[in-house]
């Protein structure tokens, strides 16, 4: 009985301490809810903290309809016809950047870094990078890029990235789902737990699809201790062959323990 009372007091004390240290809306802080109402930790400038190394765990890279709403891509008949007559070799086989949103679900990890005014995506795949300003600046004009032009802003707990200026040659997956230069992607990144982000992208392209359609998938934090992004160099041995090498083999051991002596200059008689 005394023991029970003691633990009850302890519980009250802990709850009181938690209430005292947290803000008035503290009921949520005690037990953070998972899912869309999860309140993510904040960066020093007060934005939801998306930082870390993330990866997808699905087959979208092979067929994006796997993660599409209703498992369906609403093609215009003429777009389907154009696709059938178009190139049959995946552009990534020639080390082209995969475009957005494909870069997100390539089966490689990526790291998100946040600084005031910026969210930076560093992808292991092809050492791709997106430096996204969160100032809602207008899109650039007159140039198409493989990864497009990304402009971000925050909506509550969500990072919203508006992507245009995408190169019409990129594919959405290895199953040859294509798009035109009118592609407009709106990505939404929302933390749903300590180790998960919900990723959602609305894909709009009036030259290819009958209506905007949506894909969504969870991103999982890589929690392996000491895990770091490594170099992925697609153009290795570049001679036009499609190559996807794994990490380069390397001599065994610590790079600084390898022989490090300069040759001794020989004395020469004059």
């Amino acid at each position: 009985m005394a023991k029970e009372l003691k633990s009850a007091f302890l519980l009250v004390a802990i709850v009181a301490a938690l209430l005292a240290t947290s803000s008035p809306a503290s009921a949520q802080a005690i037990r953070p809810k998972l899912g869309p109402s999860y309140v993510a930790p904040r960066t020093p400038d007060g934005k939801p903290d998306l930082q870390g190394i993330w990866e997808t765990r699905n087959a979208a890279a092979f067929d994006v309809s796997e993660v599409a709403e209703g498992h369906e891509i609403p093609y215009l008949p003429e777009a389907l016809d154009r696709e059938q007559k178009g190139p049959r070799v995946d552009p990534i086989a020639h080390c082209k950047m995969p475009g957005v949103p494909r870069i997100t679900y390539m089966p490689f990890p990526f790291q998100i870094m946040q600084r005031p005014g910026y969210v930076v995506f560093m992808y292991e795949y092809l050492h791709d990078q997106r430096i996204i300003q969160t100032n809602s600046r207008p899109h650039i004009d007159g140039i198409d890029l493989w990864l497009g032009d990304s402009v971000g802003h925050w909506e509550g707990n969500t990072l919203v990235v508006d992507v245009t200026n995408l190169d019409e040659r990129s594919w959405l997956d290895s199953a040859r789902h294509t798009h035109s230069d009118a592609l407009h992607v709106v990505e939404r990144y929302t933390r749903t737990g300590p180790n998960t982000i919900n990723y959602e992208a609305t894909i709009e392209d009036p030259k290819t699809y009958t209506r905007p359609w949506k894909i969504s998938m969870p991103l999982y934090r890589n929690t392996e201790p000491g895990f770091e992004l490594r170099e992925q160099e697609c153009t290795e041995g570049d001679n036009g062959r499609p190559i996807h090498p794994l990490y380069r083999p390397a001599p065994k051991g610590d790079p600084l323990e390898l022989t490090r002596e300069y040759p001794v200059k020989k004395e020469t008689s004059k």
Partner: protein
Amino acid sequence: MKVGLLGLIVTASLLALVPVPASGQSAAPKAPPYNPPRTEDGQPNLEGVWQPRTSGAAFSILPHPGGFFLGGGSETGVVEGGTLPLQPWAAAKAKELTQHMELDPTGHCHYEGIPHANYFPFQIFQTPKYIAVLYENMHARRIIYMDGSPHPRDYLAWMGDSRGHWEGNTLVVDVTNNNDKSVFDMAGHFHSDVLHVVERFTPVDKDTINWEATIDDPKVFTKPWKMKFPLKRAPQDFEMLESGCFEGERDAEHLVEGLATVPKDHYTEKEKEKEK
């Protein structure tokens, strides 16, 4: 109140991190050392887009003439002393490589490696545990880990592996794990896989960082050597764009025969004057 006290403590500890200039010790009137602004966690703030002033180091790190494919030329180069302590076999190989520009890895869209990547504009981002350097050229990048962790074992990369620390206001970066394929420039200067680069980024005013590197590679050189150039802050509205070098890849065929076959018409008037 509680927050106020915490704020006071944070402010006090930030102030403690700012080095106090040793005043009145030397008789000679000396400009006080530049004291860069700090990031919120107290590091000297080097963030921004930086444009190196390399005197055409991408063409040659040594003094070189101007001309087609060589830019304006440079009388000084970026190597301290203007010469490289190459071992005799390496000097011979470097000379041979100038006749085989088709072998230049940058012509095949590979990463440049360090120091070569630093000859092009890059943007620095600083977080408490790492500093990210994102290059426009070849969309290269590196993450300089600042947490005291060691270089990885059994791993080689075009960009090597960078671990850094602060010495006062200077960012010191130790780069190892380099493969033996990246090169210093287009003039045949190469290195081996024991290349060890120590870079020093020292901010000297709000728009300038002095960059210097000590290059240590006992398989190729007879002793370590140094190179340096300044980095200038890019204008406020400067944004880096995507650089996809692999585009079409039609350049490789033009490089096959190298400089030897460049028609004389392609040289500038100044170059023609020199030859007369």
